[in-house]
């Protein structure tokens, strides 16, 4: 029950999904859709579990008065507030829930995302300092592509956009294809080992 049943479930579901891929019959398609629906429902339950651990971690900080415990109040407060608002007002346009989403979450997401502009600059600087042949190649390709995408590149030398395009569609494509094929083989191999129970660390107990 503890070890064999999970392995059996994994095997049966894995093989079923592989077989399903090759069957266009409506029964098979219906099965696929049902599994995807179940997938979302099970995920929703796991969100409750996850949120439970989040509360546990922050509650422990508050009760032990650990360093920065005051911020944990903000997390738990924000969580409880969002849940209350969501279940009271619903999620339609114009509700307080959606307002919070639009004016608090979206700006926070967008701002975190935009930090990349600063970090990409520091990463470029790091690449500039590297003194290996590989790093130099990376840098040259990056500079050509950067210049190729802005008008300044064209003014510098009108052939730069063409060269950038050529790098993208030839050497870059070659590297991508090589990686993708290798990754594909690795993915299938890992998935197979999991379905067959060769890799089973997810059920605990190691070997």
């Amino acid at each position: 029950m503890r070890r064999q049943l999970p392995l059996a479930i994994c095997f049966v579901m894995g093989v079923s999904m592989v077989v399903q891929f090759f069957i266009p019959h409506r029964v098979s398609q219906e099965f696929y859709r049902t599994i995807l629906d179940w997938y979302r429902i099970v995920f929703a339950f796991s969100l409750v579990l996850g949120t439970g651990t989040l509360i546990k971690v922050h509650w422990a900080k508050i009760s032990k008065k650990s360093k920065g415990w005051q911020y944990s109040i903000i997390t738990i407060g924000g969580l409880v507030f969002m849940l209350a608002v969501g279940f009271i007002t619903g999620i339609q346009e114009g509700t307080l829930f959606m307002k919070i989403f639009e004016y608090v979450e979206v700006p926070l997401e967008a701002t975190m995302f935009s930090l990349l502009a600063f970090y990409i600059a520091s990463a470029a600087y790091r690449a500039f300092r590297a003194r290996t042949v590989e790093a130099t190649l990376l840098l040259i390709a990056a500079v050509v592509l950067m210049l190729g995408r802005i008008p300044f590149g064209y003014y510098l030398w009108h052939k730069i956009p063409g060269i950038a395009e050529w790098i993208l569609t030839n050497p870059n494509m070659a590297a991508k294809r090589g990686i993708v094929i290798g990754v594909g083989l690795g993915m299938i191999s890992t998935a197979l080992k999991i379905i067959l129970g060769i890799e089973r660390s997810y059920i605990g107990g190691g070997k």
Partner: protein
Amino acid sequence: MNLSPDPWVWLAALLTLCIYSFLYKDNPFYKAAEHLFVGLSAGYFLVIYWYNAVYPDMVVPLFKQGKLLCIIPGLLGLFFFFRFIPKVGWVSRWSIAFYIGVGAGMSIPATMQMRILEQMKGTMQPFFSLETWHVFVENPSLASFGALIGIPLMIVGVMCTLSYFFFSREHKGVLGGMSRIGIIFLMIGFGASFGYTVMARISLLIGRVQFLMSDWLGVID
């Protein structure tokens, strides 16, 4: 200057500044924004999944339409909560196994299709084309030369890159040479990806600065 009167815009702007303050160093403003972000977003997803998945796909079919099959995902979901009781926590492995099995099973044929066969087909191009040769001979230029050597270079590149991922042999001799060339292709490819992304990332920053300057401060139109 035409400051926004909307308190929601003020809130969004202040939170934006709190996050940017992290670039200087970790500070109470960032910590507060970060913890608020975590709490609100965790709550947001719970509510959204209730309204968009559990209620329409389980509660309604099970309790209003009598579709008993919907008990299965409900049970699989409930098994997760056994983790709160250490003695029977192992029951949650059943749900985990279901999830992993489905994911692994779906990925096998899809990966073979998209990541292997399609890529192989894409690489099977004519090594030499009379058409591009004629163009090059009639009009020798950087562009026509690029078109002439582009495809052969791509084919060689795929082979060499693939050889870099050979694990069960020492990279010596022919394999060593090929994998060295493979590394060159990889680095050019990574550089191209890097350069290609830079402008997109800068435009994200421009978007936030625009919000602060236009929507909040009203300094620019």
